[in-house]
């Protein structure tokens, strides 16, 4: 029962989202579905990272009126994973846009979204 708290619940959610994303990535045949799988994988990893940085009963790492500045170290959650996830989300959008553009180019060549039709490198 000691595992039943906020950070463990969100850790489990993140892990399950990672596994669902990986499952979609491996089993789907449609290129756009594969990219959706990548996006879910991304979201899951972000949830896992933020929940690992959580401190029990911590407030947001912003030192305004709600937090005593001399007692900040005992009141706030870890800011480092949050800073990492912040940049990772923005990079994720760039990567998604890049993958979708390549899919568009591939579709113009072959007129197909099925991954089984792209077997030039298969041996």
């Amino acid at each position: 029962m000691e595992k039943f708290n906020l950070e463990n619940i969100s850790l489990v959610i993140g892990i399950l989202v990672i596994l669902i994303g990986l499952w979609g990535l491996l089993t789907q045949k449609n290129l756009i579905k594969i990219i959706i799988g990548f996006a879910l994988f991304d979201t899951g990893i972000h949830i896992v990272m933020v929940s690992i940085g959580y401190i029990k009963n911590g407030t947001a790492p912003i030192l305004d009126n709600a937090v005593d500045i001399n007692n900040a170290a005992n009141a706030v959650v870890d800011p480092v994973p949050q800073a990492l996830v912040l940049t990772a989300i923005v990079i994720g959008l760039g990567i998604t846009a890049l993958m979708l553009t390549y899919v568009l180019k591939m579709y113009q060549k072959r007129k197909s979204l099925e991954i089984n039709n792209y077997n030039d490198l298969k041996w």
Partner: protein
Amino acid sequence: MIQLIIALFIGVLILIMAVIAIIHKNLVVGIIAAGAVSLFASVLYLLLSAPDVAMTEAAIGSGLSTIIFFYVLNKIKRQNG
């Protein structure tokens, strides 16, 4: 305690939406469900005391990336017809 109940509820919603995003045959429904996963994840970040991350996820994960998916899907459909 109320936080835990909200977190469990949000978690169940996230998992249902993630499964729908993968298995639904219609691509439009899949893309909307993937956007919903991001939107609920941003509520979860708010519970985990990460307002900065919640803002980024709500603006980028569920807003911009969904619209990019739709632009590409629309373009592909137009070439088809």
